[in-house]
């Protein structure tokens, strides 16, 4: 499974690069810089996907108490951290030439930043607590609360930014009129999702090996 995903990812990336640089047209207003969108939007999408997967597996863990679910949730959050950070960085790089500033407290950027901070909190919580059932339990609770909260955060930040300041100057996504741009974007999102699946499976394998090793050398033995 992992090998298939890995090969598909490589092929997908080659296809993606070809499409982005050779096939999709250069956007009229932004020029070549607009191509960052093909990395930025899929990263953001994959980041949210990773957190959603972690949310589902956290609920499953609290319900069924199967260690495997905790493994999937924590690995997914780690990968989500990478993609979320990538989205923030590529977004800033894209913002500088187009909006003339690296950062703005726009609704979607603020929500992504807060999501990134919640993810960091989760990872710190896992680091500071000792390996065991308690760690799995409390990180599952944080993942669930964080996910539910980010929905409220998004609503409130959108209100915050639009109630007195209608955002006419900044549009969050360029208007995707062109079919070629849309197709390329969809292909990029799919490739990134396959990359996410590949990374997730690899990370889960690594984590399982880690835990097996830890259980062997530790006096405690089983997770429960």
């Amino acid at each position, binding site marked *: 499974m992992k090998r298939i995903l890995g090969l598909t990812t490589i092929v997908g990336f080659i296809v993606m690069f070809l499409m982005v640089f050779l096939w999709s047209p250069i956007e009229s207003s932004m020029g070549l810089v607009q191509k960052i969108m093909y990395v930025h939007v899929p990263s953001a999408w994959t980041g949210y996907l990773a957190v959603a997967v972690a949310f589902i597996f956290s609920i499953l863990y*609290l319900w069924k108490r199967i260690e495997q679910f905790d493994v999937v949730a924590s690995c997914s959050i780690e990968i989500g951290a990478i993609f979320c950070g990538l989205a923030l960085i590529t977004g800033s790089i894209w913002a500088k030439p187009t909006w003339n500033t690296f950062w703005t407290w726009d609704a979607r950027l603020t929500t992504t930043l*807060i999501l990134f*901070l*919640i993810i*960091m*909190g989760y990872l*710190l*919580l896992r680091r*500071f*607590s000792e390996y065991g059932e*308690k760690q799995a*339990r*409390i990180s*599952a*609770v*944080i993942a*669930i*609360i*964080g996910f*539910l*909260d980010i929905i*409220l*955060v998004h*609503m*409130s*930040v959108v*209100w*915050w930014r639009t*109630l007195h300041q209608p955002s006419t100057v900044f549009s969050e996504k360029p208007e995707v009129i062109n079919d070629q741009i849309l197709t390329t974007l969809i292909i990029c999102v799919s490739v990134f999702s396959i990359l996410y699946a590949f990374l997730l499976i690899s990370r889960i394998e690594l984590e399982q090996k880690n835990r097996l090793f830890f259980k062997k050398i530790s006096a405690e033995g089983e997770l429960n």
Partner: protein
Amino acid sequence: MSQMASIELTNRQFLLQRMISNAWTIFLKDLKLDYRRVENFFSMLFFSLVILLVFTFALSPEQTKNIGILCGVFWISFLLSGILSLGKSFSLERENSCLDALLISPISRGSIFLGKMLANMAMIIVVQLIVIPIFGVLFNGVVFDHVAIFIFISFMASIGFSSLGTLLAGMTSDIRFKEILLPILLFPLLVPLLLACVKISQSILAGEGLSPVVDWFRLLAGFDLIFLIISYLTFEFVMEV
């Protein structure tokens, strides 16, 4: 059949009454502990005032006349002093294994949560009752016309703050670096609360009253309700022996 139904109903009523009385007992216990160690209360109060002081020096005189900035300062001091109360509510239990005793007693986790949450709320509200007039005195007296509404908004904010805060404090109570981890975890989750409170206070201090910010008020009430329920339900997962 109706006899069974009425037995079922009284059973449920009985459980509810018991839950409320247990929560009330724990609330009174925490208050009593705070009363005996009144330095906890004073540390919260003076920390609040110190934050206000620091902001006075950090901002220029024109900035301290700006209502928007003042509201931000007030709510930052609310958040930071509230964290002290949360940290204390579980560290009290660490001595003499009180927390273990609490968990093995036949009290539901929900009652423990409610009791602690109410105790945190009480502490925060009492501190705010003193800080709000002092805030008014330090910063040009803008607040004095609106003290009642300010106290009400603080009350609403303390519900949401205490619910999430008590849950997260219970979660981090025996982890290393819990004092720094609690704010890192809690503050991003409290962003809607903070935004709503700042917007509402800005509108009140600018003299516009509550009508332009009714949506924010609804968000605040909704946030409180949602996280009170979610924290109540998930507290038992956090507090397993």
